[in-house]
């Protein structure tokens, strides 16, 4: 079976439409981020406590909220989690207060099982925040260095712009859908970085090869040939990766769901950017320098 046999799509010619689309997505995401005052961070970064409780029967959130408010959990957020029998309660950090569970029991009064408690002090939250940020920046920097070394700096610019593009759009999507960013989401971002780059490199590699092979052709033509000849691989790999991540999203359980969702978004955006962002940006810098000479 061959789905993309000898395609001849003018990817470079369409890069203006792509530019517009990318800008629109990024601006929508940034606008949402600006309106909400930055990304919605989980307790991993802000500090706080979440408790996941399981009841014998479906939970009436309103009633539960009232009960908790009466008992000193005024500022807690409560949502159902996975099944209607389970809730996630988010409150202030309670590390110093070791009586969280018994306090919840007195407050709620009906039987429940504590499935999970996560408590992060504000100090640790700040540290995890700067760790996550430095992890993202450090890996971008190392990747930039590696690509400059293996290819040249124009390719590196192209790759890194594509990566920033991917992470910005994914963050925007998360902000638009009001999904909190926690530690695992940051791990997902870095995986997206790796994945998208993987795609980009395969294309770049082909461009590098074709620049030698088709020395007389224009850069536009070379990039188009390369994108078309790697298209089959790009789509097939994205498909297999998408399938496993979708299966993780559907069957992997509630705890890992947002992580899987970030990867799903990332695969789409990463595949798109390796075709429509990385190469055009590389070409832009390449041409700009050529014009100066």
């Amino acid at each position, binding site marked *: *079976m*061959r789905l993309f046999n*000898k395609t001849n799509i003018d990817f470079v010619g369409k890069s203006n439409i792509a530019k517009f689309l990318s800008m629109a997505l990024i601006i929508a995401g940034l606008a949402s981020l600006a309106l909400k005052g930055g990304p919605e961070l989980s307790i991993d970064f802000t500090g706080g406590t979440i408790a*996941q409780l399981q009841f014998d029967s479906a939970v009436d959130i309103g009633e539960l909220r009232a009960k908790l408010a009466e008992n000193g959990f005024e500022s807690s957020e409560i949502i159902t989690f996975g099944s209607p029998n389970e809730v996630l309660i988010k409150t202030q950090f309670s*590390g*110093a207060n*070791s*009586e*969280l569970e018994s306090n919840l029991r007195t407050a709620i009064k009906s039987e429940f099982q*504590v499935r*999970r*408690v*996560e*408590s*992060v*002090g504000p*100090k*640790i939250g*700040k*540290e995890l925040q700067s760790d996550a940020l430095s*992890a993202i920046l450090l*890996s971008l920097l*190392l*990747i930039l260095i590696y*690509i400059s070394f293996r290819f040249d700096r124009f390719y590196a610019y192209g790759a890194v712009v594509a990566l920033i593009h991917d992470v910005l759009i994914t963050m925007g999507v998360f902000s638009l859908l009001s999904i909190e960013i926690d*530690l*695992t989401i*940051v*791990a997902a971002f870095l*995986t997206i*970085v790796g*994945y998208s*780059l*993987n795609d980009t*490199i*395969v294309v770049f*590699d*082909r461009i590098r090869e074709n620049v030698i092979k088709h020395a007389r052709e224009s850069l536009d033509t070379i990039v188009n040939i390369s994108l078309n*000849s*790697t298209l*089959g*691989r790009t789509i*097939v*790999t994205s498909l*297999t*990766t*998408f*399938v*496993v*991540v979708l*299966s*993780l999203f*559907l*069957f*992997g*359980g509630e*705890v*890992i769901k947002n992580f*899987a969702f970030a*990867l799903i978004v990332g695969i789409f955006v990463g595949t798109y950017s390796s075709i429509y962002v990385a190469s055009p940006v590389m070409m832009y810098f390449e041409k700009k320098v050529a014009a100066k000479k």
Partner: protein
Amino acid sequence: MFRDLKVRGFLIFLVVLAAGYKIYPTYQYYTMSDESKAKMSNGDMKKLRSDAINLGLDLQGGMYVLLEAEIPTLVRKLASKKPDELMKTITDAEQRATNLQTDFFDEFETLANKRELRLIRYYTNLSTSRDNGSVISALKLQRDDAVSSALEIIRNRVDEFGVAEPNIQKYGKNRIIVELAGIDDADRARKLIQRTASLEFTLVMNEKLQSTLEKIDATLLAADDFKTPVDAEDDEDKDEPTDAVDDIFSELDNATDVSDIISTPVHILKESPFSGYLRGLPGGVGVVSNEYNKVKSLLEREDVQSVIPRDGRFLWASKFEKTPIDESNFVEYRLLYFVRNNPEISGGMVKNPQATIASAGTDVSGQWVVNLEMTPEGARKWSRFTGANIDKQVAIVLDEKIFMAPFIRGKIPGGRTQISGFADANEAKDISNVLRAGELPAPVYIIEERTVGPSLGSDSITSGRQAMLVGFIIVLIFMVLYYQGSGLIANIALILNLVIVIAILAGMNATLTLPGIAGLILTIGMAVDANVIIFERIREELDLGKTVKAAIDAGYQRAFITILDANITTLIAAFVLAWIGSGPIKGFAITLSAGIICSMFTAVFVTRTVFMMMTANKPLEKLSI
């Protein structure tokens, strides 16, 4: 060398063998029945468990706690003189360090130098050199000692708790990680770990209570930000609890708890906004459970704290108690005491704490108690103190909570003492345990905690396994449909890849976490990438009219560089994650990296070998791809 098929085949055989050897203990451990596990000797079991892949706390259920020793408190405690300027400098340094995420000692040294504090004056015994720098270094050594001994003390406490293979380790300079697998009473573990275990026997100053209460009332009435309850619902019909009732406690079982509807009448609070809440109750003065939080927060107000006499402090009883108010109703209440700050006896003077059930004939018979002995110095002090304070109340304070406050009936020589008032057997045992292990040199606080119940853990395993199976099968089917015979070869490589990754995890003694499973699943999707790159390239070469053998050779040769570059960049991201990330994230990064590295072997080397075998003897006319 690698052109020789036999060498290649043998190498693959070796790898598979080694992988099987590494995986076997894991297979054995997780398929073994509980019975045969029980039959094994402890040593064998321990070895098997350490050879098998361990499940992370998020999969088997358990508790991860990050503790921080409060160093500024230690530095305050170590000072031989405690003038305000020193205390203020410590507090300021602490605040700066928290806000700027810097080291406390650096801030302390800078501030001390700026304020021209000569630290040697307050820490005379610590350092032989007189400059601030050497005193700070000496204090740092003290910190290291304190954290190490805190670690030992926590280890002793946890050992008695009876968790299988607890992991307790130092993290950074003043932090301690405690990991307890498969724990079912997180609250108890939390208390046990955090308890400073400070024990004090101190005098209850009933004679100063009244005047202090009056001062607090006056302060609150004068405070701008404090409003007495409005007289809108000034109903005097509400039941007031009667003072100390002498009813029999056994009637409580079928009585109703009316604590919720009892509240102090507003007209009383208008005049006595604090003391109005306090009632005479069996055992002393206390508040009803539904007003406890309110009173507690009033007591914590800064202006209130500032009028409390310097030599004393308010402390709550360790637990709520119940008392009947009439035949069918009872209230829950907590007692409040005003005690002297300078304790007579402290934890260091106590020895041999033992939790037992009090023997018959005493007034606490049948209850859990902790029996104590005292050091000679403690016994002497205790005897003198009890002799001098007959008919007064002495409070036994553990971690700032009063467990009991008996009246002294006579001089107690010899130092034998009994503490009662525990909620249950566990509490009595835990307390005697922490008293035995000793007091923590500096208070430790939980700054991060992640607890997963065993049921969620097993749910995660089930769903993770299911997600992996579904994704795996779909990818296998897809590869065969899309690349036919060659797809089959890629599938063999994929299966082999998973086997080797699991073997590597077992070999590294790695822990499998939920994100780790996610990494494994992602690996399945990404590991076929190398084969996709190769196969697509071979197809292109075939299109150019090359023979099967030439196409395969060219395909592998050209694709290899691409695969290498592409995988190295993914590895960079994964390595950074493994380096900076903690716990579960690290698990994800490790499985992903292992998967990618293995895919280079399985998807390139192994599949190539299979193709080489196919084309070795007779040239292939047509390739199924």
